Each structure stands twice: as C-alpha cells, then as structure tokens.
C-alpha cells in the first residue's frame, strides 16, 4: 500500500486482448469520500452543495450516486475527478488523498483515474484514434505500445473501422464509446462516469451500460456512476448512494433499499419510472 498510485499504474496490463483477459483480474482500487463539504458563494447567497458526505466504493464494484438535480452530484463528481477541491474532507484512492497531491504527483495519480464527462469532451480536432491515445501520450508511453493499445480498445468498443474518423462524424452512442475507451486507455483503477446515458436512446443506453459492466468484469476497474436515472442503477449497479440536499441519506444495494427505503429521493425516483 505504499503509494498505490505510483505503483499500480505500470503494473496494470498495458496490452490486453479482450478474448484472453481473465474474467476477474484483481480489482485493487477503492474510492472513499471522507467528510466532504463544499459551499458555493453566489453574491450574498451561500449554497451548501455538500454537507459532510462520507461513503466508500469498494474495489471492483459498480456504485451509483443518485439524486435529483441540486442534490450535490456534480460537486461530488468534480471532487472525485480532481477538478474542484472540496472545502474540507478527503477523497481517498486506496489510502492516497487526491487533494493532498500537487504538480507531477497529481498528474501521475490522474493516470489511475478514468473520467467520462457528461458532455464527453472529445477533442474535435483529433481523430478517434488520437483521442484514445491522448492519455497514454501524457503518460509517456512509447508510440508502438500506444497504437497497439488503441487498436485493441477500438476493437473492444466495436469502432475499429472508425479509427480515423473525427468525433463530429460519429453518432451519440459511438462518441460515448470513444469516451469510455479513452477513459480506460491508461488502464486506470477507477472509472468515473457523469450521467453516462442521459443523452442516449433506450437501446443505446443498454449497450453503453453493458460496456461499462464489461470494463469492470474484464479489467477489474472500480466504477462510480453519477446519475439521476433509476434504470441505470437497476441494470448494472452493485450499490447505491443516495444524495439529498447535499447529504448522503442512504446507502446499500437495490434490494435493501426496496425493502426499507428511508429517503424521499428513493421513493420519487422509483415512482418516476
């Protein structure tokens, strides 16, 4: 456990093949939020986006953070994605507090973090191949290795024939798959997905959720999904954390929450199906 971030990154398999990949490689990265609070100041208004939120995502699991808009999901996502520091609290990747890292140390930690943004943020001037290669370029991998890895990821997401297309020429579902492949390029221990299906039609949604589950099953990546859709939770999530007004109100698997729901949010989300 000495500096997991530095050590686990080169240890990850860099040239996998979907067919021969072991069904369950050792998942080894857990994510823990510890007493996260964040307040925004808008003029003379203060908004408590997160109030003392603590929970864990066990290594190798797929966990959802669900809540209505304004519940603090985006703030939590930004804290976990190393984009916006919380006012207090820790975001721990195994035992390393991401927000204690600076400069090159933080850069290295980010190689262990795959992020799929709600708006995807594929770079329009780069081809599909170049987009997926980018995290590996930043990690300083050699070009031959990068090409092999990109090709294998492209086959994995079924877009090998689109390698040299630009993002604007892809459909929404295809773009989403490129974003997932790019997030997995450096074989990260943690995959963060912000509303991964909010812009997709039902059948594409299914395909994308299956892809995320395959990522966990084949590469052992731990997954945290931010969502407001119960269908996402039902289809692939092992555990759910419910946020309400910036507070964590419930935790558990779907069966537990069904039997014994405490929060308004769960009831409302279930009813909205």
């Amino acid at each position, binding site marked *: 456990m000495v500096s997991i971030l530095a050590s686990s990154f080169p240890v990850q398999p860099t040239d996998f093949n979907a067919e021969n990949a072991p069904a369950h490689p050792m998942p080894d990265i857990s994510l823990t939020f510890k007493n996260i609070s964040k307040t925004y100041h808008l003029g003379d208004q203060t908004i408590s986006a997160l109030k003392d939120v603590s929970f864990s995502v066990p290594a190798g699991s797929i966990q959802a953070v669900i809540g209505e808009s304004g519940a603090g999901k985006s703030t939590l996502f930004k804290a976990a*994605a*190393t*984009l916006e520091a919380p006012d207090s609290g820790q975001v721990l990747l195994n035992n390393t507090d991401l927000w204690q890292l600076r400069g*090159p140390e933080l*850069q*290295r*930690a*980010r*190689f262990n*973090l795959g*992020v799929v*943004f709600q*708006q995807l*943020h594929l*770079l*329009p*001037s*780069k081809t599909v191949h170049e987009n997926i290669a*980018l*995290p590996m*370029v*930043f*990690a300083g991998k050699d070009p031959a290795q990068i090409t092999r890895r990109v090709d294998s990821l492209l086959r994995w997401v079924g877009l090998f024939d689109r390698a040299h297309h*630009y*993002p*604007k020429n892809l459909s929404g579902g295809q773009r989403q798959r490129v974003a997932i492949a790019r997030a997995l390029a*450096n074989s990260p221990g943690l995959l963060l997905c912000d509303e991964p299906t909010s812009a997709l039609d039902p059948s594409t949604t299914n395909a994308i959720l299956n892809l995320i589950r395959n990522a966990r099953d084949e590469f052992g990546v731990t997954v945290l999904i931010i969502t407001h859709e119960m269908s996402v939770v039902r289809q692939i999530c092992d555990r759910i954390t419910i946020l309400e007004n910036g507070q964590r109100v419930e935790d558990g698997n779907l069966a537990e929450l069904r039997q014994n729901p405490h929060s308004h949010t769960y009831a409302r989300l279930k009813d909205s199906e």
Partner: protein
Amino acid sequence: MANLEESLHLLTTATLETLAMVAVATLLSTLGGLLLAITLIVCEPGGLHPMPRLLRILNAIINLGRSIPFIILMVAIIPFTRLIVGTSIGTTAAIVPMVVAAIPYFARLAEAAFKEVPHGLVEAVTVMGASPRQIITHTYLREGLPALIRAVTVTTITLISYSAMAGAVGGGGLGDLAIRYGYQRFQTDIMLATVIILVVMVQLVQSLGDRIAQRYDHR
C-alpha cells in the same frame, strides 16, 4: 516603350519590397503575439497559473500599443528603430514599427481564439494527467488553430496596409511608389497599378488563409 519597361521594373521592385516587409513582419509579430497571448491565457483568473498583477500590466501595455495610430507610432519609435537596425529609413527599418504595432494586435486576436476553446476540453485534458505545457499545446493551440490561422490572415492584411503607410515615410515598397510616382509625379497608371497589386495581394492572402483554416477545422 522604355517608359513601360521602367514602370514595370519599379512595380516589380516595389512589390518584392512589400512582400519582404510583410512576410518578415508577419512572422515576427505572430511569434511575439502568440507568446503574449499564451501568457495572457495562463495568467487570467481560472487559468493554469493565475497572476492578476502581471495580467493587468500586460493588458495595459497591449491597450497602449493598440491605441496609438500606426502613422504616429512609426515616427514616435524612430530612436528605437535606429537602435535595433541602425537606420530609420528603408525597408528593413519599416519592419520594426510594423512588428511593434502588430504584436499587440495579433496578441488580442490570438487571445480571443484561445478563449473560444471550450473550457470542458481543458478540464478533460487536465484530468487525463497532462502537464501545463501539454494542456497548452493540445487544447489552446491545437483546438484554437483554425481561429489562430484566421487571426494570422487578418494580421497579414493589416500589415500590408501598414507597409503602404511605412512607404510614405521612406520605407520603400508599393506605398512609397504610389506616393512618389503616382501622387507627386501625377503618374495615374502607376497609382492604379499599385492599388490593383495591393487588392490582389489582400484577396490572395484572405482566400489562402480561409482555405488553410478550413482544412484544420473539424468542429
């Protein structure tokens, strides 16, 4: 016949002088303006390394440079021009005020090009583990490239008109020719020819710039 030959010779020489002035000035002011614009985007609030004080100073300098009319700037910085190139007359000397005037001009256009790059792309690349230098090259420079090329086009055309003004105070080139022969010696044909050459130059630069920008634009 001799007269026509002489006119053609004058026009060719003047055109080449203008091309040389504009080419060198465009190259230097693009480089200088680009460095300045990168500094601005890095220093601004929310940038890679916010430095509000430096930003204020640079903005003040750029605004100062942008607010002085070129014809006045040209005369005002003669001592500086002499210091740099040893003379204040001729084609080489004209390049100095042209660059001094075009650097802040291009810097503003390049800054606008950088600000057009969606912030989400910068965030995405940051989260991938890019270094500050990689963030600049892969987002601002690469994604801003079409807008940057358009900025170079506009700057080049501005420099063509600067070069004509520089000609009026002994800088050589087409402006010089138009003043000395077309205006002072009443040679309307020379005047007309210089105007046509300048128009053609601007058209060519604009359409070439548009075409290159288009090629790099995948949005």
